[in-house]
């Protein structure tokens, strides 16, 4: 890797754009909470617990987007795009994993009421768990490789292959198997425990949540990329200090 100019600590002040984006995302989150709790009407059959879906689905969407970005970054890295794409892919997986954790932990609260138990080995839920494990393994794989170039190559290839679990979770399960999990976009399977037929206000809240979580993802990704760049700089300085140059 080409040697890089090492900057002093003070040179890494936060860009104005990131500050604006962070504040805007916080406002969007407050507005999305208002939409979910007050603007959207209470669902007649499930009551208030249905409101979990607005953030549960929003986080699921943003998580899938994060893993798609990792695929794009992986392809860019493998085709010679440079180290920055490895940083983007890695950061995106970590943020995506946090978002999917929100989805996986909030879903069982709704399921406890709707199904009488927090978890079933339904195809949709099982493939979601496999997806989470696949990306947790991505982080472990990277942590186990010392050489940055090798880590980047392995991470890029793994990030592309692991996306199969995302396709299976969001699309594949719909077509190949019966599931009790309701579908938000498109009609639910005949085996689903409930249909997600939404009133216009519910739909507005859901769309707003999708947009909000897209901003949440973008904001966290930017912060995480900056953190990775800071870690690289510290490691480079440590190496220089130890070598005595």
């Amino acid at each position: 890797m080409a040697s890089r100019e090492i900057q002093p600590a003070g040179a890494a002040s936060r860009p104005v754009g990131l500050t604006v984006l962070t504040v805007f995302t916080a406002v969007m989150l407050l507005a999305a909470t208002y939409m979910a709790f007050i603007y959207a009407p209470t669902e007649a059959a499930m009551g208030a617990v249905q409101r979990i879906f607005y953030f549960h689905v929003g986080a699921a969407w943003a998580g899938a987007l994060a893993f798609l970005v990792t695929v794009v970054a992986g392809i860019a890295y493998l085709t010679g795009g440079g180290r920055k794409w490895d940083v983007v892919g890695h950061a995106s997986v970590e943020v995506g994993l946090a978002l999917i954790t929100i989805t996986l932990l909030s879903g069982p609260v709704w399921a406890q009421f709707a199904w009488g138990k927090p978890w079933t080995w339904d195809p949709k839920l099982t493939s979601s768990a496999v997806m989470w494990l696949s990306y947790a393994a991505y982080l472990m794989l990277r942590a186990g490789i010392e050489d940055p170039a090798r880590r980047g190559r392995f991470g890029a290839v793994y990030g592309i292959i692991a996306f199969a679990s995302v396709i299976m979770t969001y699309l594949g399960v719909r077509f190949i198997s019966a599931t009790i999990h309701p579908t938000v976009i498109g009609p639910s399977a005949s085996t689903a425990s409930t249909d997600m037929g939404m009133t216009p206000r519910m739909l507005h809240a859901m769309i707003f949540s999708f947009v909000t979580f897209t901003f949440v993802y973008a904001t966290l990704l930017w912060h995480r990329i900056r953190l990775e760049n800071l870690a690289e700089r510290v490691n480079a300085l440590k190496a220089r200090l130890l070598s005595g140059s």
Partner: protein
Amino acid sequence: MPVLLIESATPDTALFLLLGYAIIGGVGLIYVISLLIRQHNLKRDLEIIERLQDDERE
């Protein structure tokens, strides 16, 4: 009367809702705090390294 019937049929699931959003907020907060802690530690490392470099120059 039909309106009353619909209202009484809607279950009270507010506790589930609060638990769900507590989990959502909790996971989000833990992740943001982990980012802040890592950033704080790296900045501290950077300051120490720079101090060591200054000492070497002197």
